[in-house]
């Protein structure tokens, strides 16, 4: 009898999480509050049960996430007694960095990439778990499960360590680090099927509801708080939408949808012809933009 593919993926991911925790001195789990983070966290808790998680969670906070995400995060942390570190690039925020006045590339570099590198250095983390999957984007398809980063946190795609079998090489020198991707082989469909199977809680924004929306450059942007800058005469209108992917609210595109349960989301996805990252405004800046961001240290 063969294991279902979800159970086999689960077993493989748990193996990776345990290897990183055993081989690296100070791992941390990059927690972005999205569905992939939720699955990753769930697998990590499984990997060490009944012992507590042997590493903390790190949330790199741009301060521009949806309110529902912050609420969800704080409730989850309290409920499971998790150690959470929240890190912001305070200097950039103090200097007025925001998603309206700056191009998305600069914004991402300052509040996400730089903030992440600073946080890893500040706490001396030598390994960081991410929920990235290889099916998300072209350059992700080439990334190893253990992705080596140099002293500047940068990725060199042309000289990746060969990765044979499930024998991962976690040897690093001081200042270098490993980004570990236990969900590498999962697809978006697998993630949702697993969320349904395991009843993993996710932020309600993934489910369809009436939300105040403005249309910007073809993207449906949900106006989540008072900071949103409406153009003269622009008025949010209520629209039944949901998100396939969550990030900073002014940069996240919603989709028209009636799917308000996991089975309906899966149903919708099987019919859908748009890839998940399309709603991410920051990925479309230029051809190969994800590869560039990753080389600089972005997750």
């Amino acid at each position, binding site marked *: 009898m063969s294991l279902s593919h979800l159970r086999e993926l689960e077993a493989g991911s748990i193996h990776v999480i345990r*290897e990183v925790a055993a081989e690296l001195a100070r791992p941390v789990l990059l927690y972005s509050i999205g569905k992939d983070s939720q699955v990753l966290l769930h697998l990590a808790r*499984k990997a060490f049960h*009944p012992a507590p998680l042997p590493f903390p969670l790190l949330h790199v906070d741009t301060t521009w996430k949806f309110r529902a995400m912050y609420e969800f995060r704080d409730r989850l942390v309290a409920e499971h007694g998790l150690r959470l570190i929240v890190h912001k690039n305070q200097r950039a925020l103090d200097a007025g960095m925001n998603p309206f006045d700056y191009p998305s590339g600069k914004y991402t570099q300052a509040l996400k990439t730089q903030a992440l590198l600073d946080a890893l250095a500040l706490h001396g983390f030598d390994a960081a778990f991410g929920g990235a999957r290889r099916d998300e984007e072209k350059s992700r398809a080439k990334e190893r499960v253990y992705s080596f980063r140099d002293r500047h946190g940068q990725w060199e795609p042309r000289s990746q360590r*060969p990765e044979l079998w499930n024998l991962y090489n976690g040897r690093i020198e001081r200042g270098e680090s490993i980004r570990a991707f236990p969900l590498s082989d999962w697809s978006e469909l697998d993630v*949702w099927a697993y969320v349904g199977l395991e009843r993993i809680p996710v932020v309600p924004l993934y489910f369809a509801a009436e939300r105040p929306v403005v249309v910007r450059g073809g993207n449906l942007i949900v106006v989540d708080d008072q900071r949103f800058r409406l153009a003269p005469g622009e008025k949010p209108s209520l629209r039944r939408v949901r998100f396939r992917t969550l990030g900073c609210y002014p940069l996240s595109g919603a989709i028209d949808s009636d799917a308000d349960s996991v089975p309906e989301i899966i149903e919708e996805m099987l019919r859908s*012809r*748009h890839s998940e990252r399309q709603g991410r405004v920051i990925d479309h800046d230029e051809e190969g933009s994800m590869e560039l961001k990753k080389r600089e240290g972005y997750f």
Partner: protein
Amino acid sequence: MVLHASTAPRIEAAPEEATELVRVVALGSVDDGKSTLIGRLLYETGALYEDQVAAVKRASRLGGEIDFSLFTDGLKAEREQGITIDVAYRYFATARRKFILADAPGHAQYTRNMATGASTADAGVVLLDARLGVLPQSRRHLAIAALLGIPRLTVAINKMDLVGFDRAIFERIADEVRDFAARLGFAELRFIPLSARYGDNLTLRSPRTPWHRGGTLLESLETVKVARETALGPLRFPVQSVLRAEDYRGYAGQIASGAVAIGDDVVVLPSGARTRVLAIDTFEGGLREAAAPLSVALRLADAVDVARGDLIAAPQSPPSVRTRFEATAVWLSERPLDPGRAYLLKHTTRLVPARVEAVRWRLDPETLAQIEAQRLELNEVGRIAIHCARPIACDAYRDNRVTGAFILVDALTNDTVAGGTVLIDGLNDDRLAERGAIRSVAAEERRSRLGHGGAAVLVERESETAALALAGALERALFDRGCATVVVRSAEAALACAGAGLVAVCAAAGPELSRARLRAELRASGVPLAELRAGDDARDPVQAALAELRNLGALPLRAPE
């Protein structure tokens, strides 16, 4: 004729249904049309989304036609150079199976990336260009697929449209592949004539190959037998870590092979401590039994010493515990193998300092010839002897792809420099011990004294005179080369002598039936064995035997000149 019918997703399986996970590696180069084949396969199985298709349509320069190869080229350097450098992973699904397709580069200088993709594959697809047939690089792909233990291959003979879907061309290429692959020991080879560009026999059967009975490539991938032998076989459980909580001490790991149940006797290696399984724990609660590839935590009945890197195994068929072993390795580093250099060997969850004691030979992957070599260079494959500072508990790779695999890491640079597969030469084998091999002197001590390992040579002839004459000639040749050797007349004597480090030349004559029994006994023993079969007279039998024994490590290494 051009088949564009299937842009709609064809993922029919309800996701909660049990579908099977299958890992496939695609071997070939851009010139073979591999990127086009994979791009189209993803497109036709509905694995691509509309915006991805639109982006590729914008970039295609084929006048409205989709350039399918653009779906798969990921890195900037690859787009610039128009080649595949690194292995990329692609995902698609059918009703029965979820596929993880490792899209591996074909060029010789990226063999190491190809090995990355092939190491975990359950099945392989090898691409050939119908106009060019079997190229040197195709032979290399086949050799590495065999080395990494991929049992089943589908050979896709592409660009059939450019040879007029000529059956004779297809058959000729297929025969050539069969001839070459016969020496590599694949369990199954399937051949499919296709055109990736026009979609013939990719996911839809082509009306242009009415003579082809073998179905489409997708059908082949959906039906290829995926040997989950790991779930059978004896228990192997490499310990990843010790889980500690209040009143709790469990050993976390992923079952590499076999199954385990509460109450089972187990042995902890390399210490050899015996105990019983008290509980099998998961997040959801305790299990009565569990099988590979589940990740679980085991609690043991006795307070034995267990740490990360130990292996919990079935005591009735344990792995071999050793510090020295022979291996086939593919070298992955620009810095060549250096026997003076300090390496770290990672085997299952165990990391031990190791040295490469000797390079026996390197393989010419295009002719399969074994060439004498002092070192291995980037992308070369060869036989090496390894000496670890601490013992590992391993199986032969052909028996177990988890406990038979290892990587070497350069202790100074931390680079992964080699991937290797364990060959068990049988000298420390328990089966041999039961047959009376004397264990008070270790095989390694004998090897070190004699300058070579033990082995048996089976010399079969119809007549006794012929068998003894040939055995005598071989004994003389071996003796002249500094080998400790002896002629014997029974399997029992051959095994005892080989176990004592000698090269035992076993002369066998008489009817086929009695010779077959002797042959089977020698083969089953696991002793390094060379065979000179009756009627196998086309070549010089003594030279043939010497060559085989050299490969088995049973000839003294020549002194450096």
